[in-house]
């Protein structure tokens, strides 16, 4: 008899890092399918390139720096997938690949790897691509079957699409963000499997719609346009870069929504979700400082 002596607890929750990441990938599949449906196979190619680049990038980085290779935790795959879904269909392959590598090596790897980055890798990579090669990131191909090569996104020309079009996604935009139905399916899946809480997405979308309304935008169109829903469900909820305490998460989500409304109204970019979430990420450590749980048997804010 060879008895193990590892200490208690002797049971573990079935939700491992890998299971959680797999849940996110499954939740992203409807968006991938919808993207292919809207933009054709060019969309699939973009998503695949960025995913493969992110996974290979992580593999090579971890091997080069003599770390244990942990590609099997699927976090790099999630990053690459989300980045790909944030790009326009048919973006140059090197753009998608470079973005994937930047995300896992510069934004994540240099800080130590999974859990150590302070900002969402996929979004930071997207911001980098937008800053470096703006023409590719603002060139939106029209949905397959529409008689035009490029078209104006709903954010650039509000009112040119019906709510149903916005919801189903036969509109120009980034691959993953166009079909709101697919995003909602993913959201429900993530909440049901307890991968994420409903808190951040709902608070962020509601806050953006409300603030947008105050600033003169149609709240329904605000919620259904651009990458707001996609960002709120899949990127603002990134464990690593959102606050860890519940009150902190509320402030974070409401703040991100507010920034989205402000950016859409005032900045030169028609879309502000990327920057709103990145800025919220940066404030997350401060929010975690402000909102700490009271320790049992201690007065609020009392130190040992």
């Amino acid at each position, binding site marked *: 008899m060879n008895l193990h002596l590892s200490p208690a*607890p*002797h049971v573990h*929750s079935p939700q491992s890092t890998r299971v959680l990441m797999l849940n996110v990938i499954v939740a992203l599949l409807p968006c991938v399918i919808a993207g292919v449906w809207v933009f054709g196979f060019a969309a699939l190619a973009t998503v695949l390139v960025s995913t493969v680049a992110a996974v290979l990038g992580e593999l090579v980085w971890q091997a080069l720096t003599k770390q244990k290779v942990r590609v099997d935790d699927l976090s790099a795959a999630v990053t690459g997938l989300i980045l790909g879904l944030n790009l326009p269909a048919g973006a140059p392959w090197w753009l998608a690949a470079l973005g994937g590598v930047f995300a896992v090596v510069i934004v994540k790897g240099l800080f130590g790897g999974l859990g150590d980055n302070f900002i969402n890798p996929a979004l930071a990579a997207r911001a980098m691509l937008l800053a470096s090669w703006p023409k590719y990131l603002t060139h939106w191909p029209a949905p397959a079957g529409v008689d035009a090569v490029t078209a104006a996104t709903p954010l650039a020309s509000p009112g040119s699409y019906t709510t149903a079009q916005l919801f189903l996604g036969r509109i120009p935009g980034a691959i993953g963000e166009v079909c709101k139905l697919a995003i909602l399916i993913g959201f429900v899946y993530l909440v049901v499997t307890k991968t994420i809480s409903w808190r951040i997405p709902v608070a962020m979308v509601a806050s953006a719609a409300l603030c947008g309304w105050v600033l003169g935008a149609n709240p329904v169109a605000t919620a259904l346009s651009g990458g707001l829903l996609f960002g709120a469900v899949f990127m603002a909820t990134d464990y690593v870069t959102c606050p860890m*305490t519940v009150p902190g998460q509320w402030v974070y989500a409401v703040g991100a929504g507010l920034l989205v409304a402000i950016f859409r109204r005032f900045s030169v970019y028609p879309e502000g979700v990327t920057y709103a979430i990145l800025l919220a990420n940066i404030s997350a450590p401060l929010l975690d400082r402000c909102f700490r749980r009271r320790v049992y048997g201690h007065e609020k804010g009392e130190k040992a």
Partner: protein
Amino acid sequence: MSSNRTFRGGVHPLHGSHEGKAPTRGEAVRDYIAQTVTILMGMHLGAPSTPCVQVGDHVKLGQPIGEPVGFLGLPVHASVSGEVVAVGPVQSVTNPSAMAVTIKNDFKDEWVPLNPLGDVETCPADQIVPAIKAAGVCGMGGASFPTHVKFAVKEGQYCDTIILNGAECETHLTCDHRLMLEDSKRIVDGLRAAMRALGVKKGVIAIEDNKPDAIEAMRKAAQGREGVEVMPLLTKYPQGGEKQLIHVVTGREVPTKKLPLDVHVIVLNVGTAKAIADAVIDGRPLISRITTVTGHVKKPSNLRVRVGTPVSDLIRECGGYSIPESDVGKVVMGGAMTGFPCPHDRVPVAKANNGVVVYSQREAVELEESPCIRCGRCIDACPIGLNPCKLKYLCDAGDMKRAGEENVMDCVVCGSCSYICPARRRLTTSFKAMKDKIAAEARKGKG
């Protein structure tokens, strides 16, 4: 009978399979008497007792074989009658050389003369605590704190509520559940004795709502007994933790570094209450207890065993392992959340050992720690409100000062954070080590 009364945080281990209690909760308690018992001298928190018998001595049932040492000392009694065959160190669950007395059972079960006090409602109240001490009663829920010390109310302190802990929030275990079903009257007697000893007006028996039959049985037993009530609680781990229980039942929080008595509460396990009743009514010392034997054994059961019975005897009595012996991966003394792994299966059962759980190799294999993904689940799960994620970093870095500032000493080592962590980080283990280190440092500073 479901309840919403609970604390903030916590986890639901094995919730899909009735907290692992299904195999044993319907099984009536069986008696098992061992041929040889190895009685440890250090079964309680505090200095081990000194053996007062020698090899070759004949001892009677209930005869003192160990004398108390120090403030937290407790006497130890023979749990069988027969001949002392060995006095010396043996392997216990946590200590490779623990002083013990081994007795070969002659199966005569001759008692030493006992001093019963009689009915708990009429016996002299001032003799109750000495009787409890003489009977060697310690907490039977796992912490094994000497019970008479809990009753030592200091100048200026008072107690207004005694809580009987029947929550049994730990997974797999059903020994308290069965005890409440089969010996409900004795439990209430024990509670009344404790209340009378300290002049307490209110006694609360707290039970998780996954044991409706036990709640029913205890309510029936408590009927007509002065100041005794039964309180159902939500099923959630660690509902039976002392601090959580006090908060849920009384709304009070034990201030940091203080004891329950500082908020006028004493918490006793239901098994301890039964032992108190035995000590008062019959004058009988604590020589047996109910232990749940479950996991990979052929016939999971609750056994009433003599203190000092080897675990291997318990497993044999339950039909032996249900998997090949080579596949047995871990034998845990206690439940899945806080139990101690046994180095081998011949260690003896002590007064506070409430269960034995057998795991297969596959279940027992230690999961590899991976990087923290900062999901915040540990923060949500901590019943104390600590930040385990940050604390783990400080503890692993050996930063005693900042770990103390992050309140590591308030950690109750319940295991909720380690259970919930998707990265399988051994948070609780780090905290336990840091707590021990800080406590050792403090002792060094004093001495």
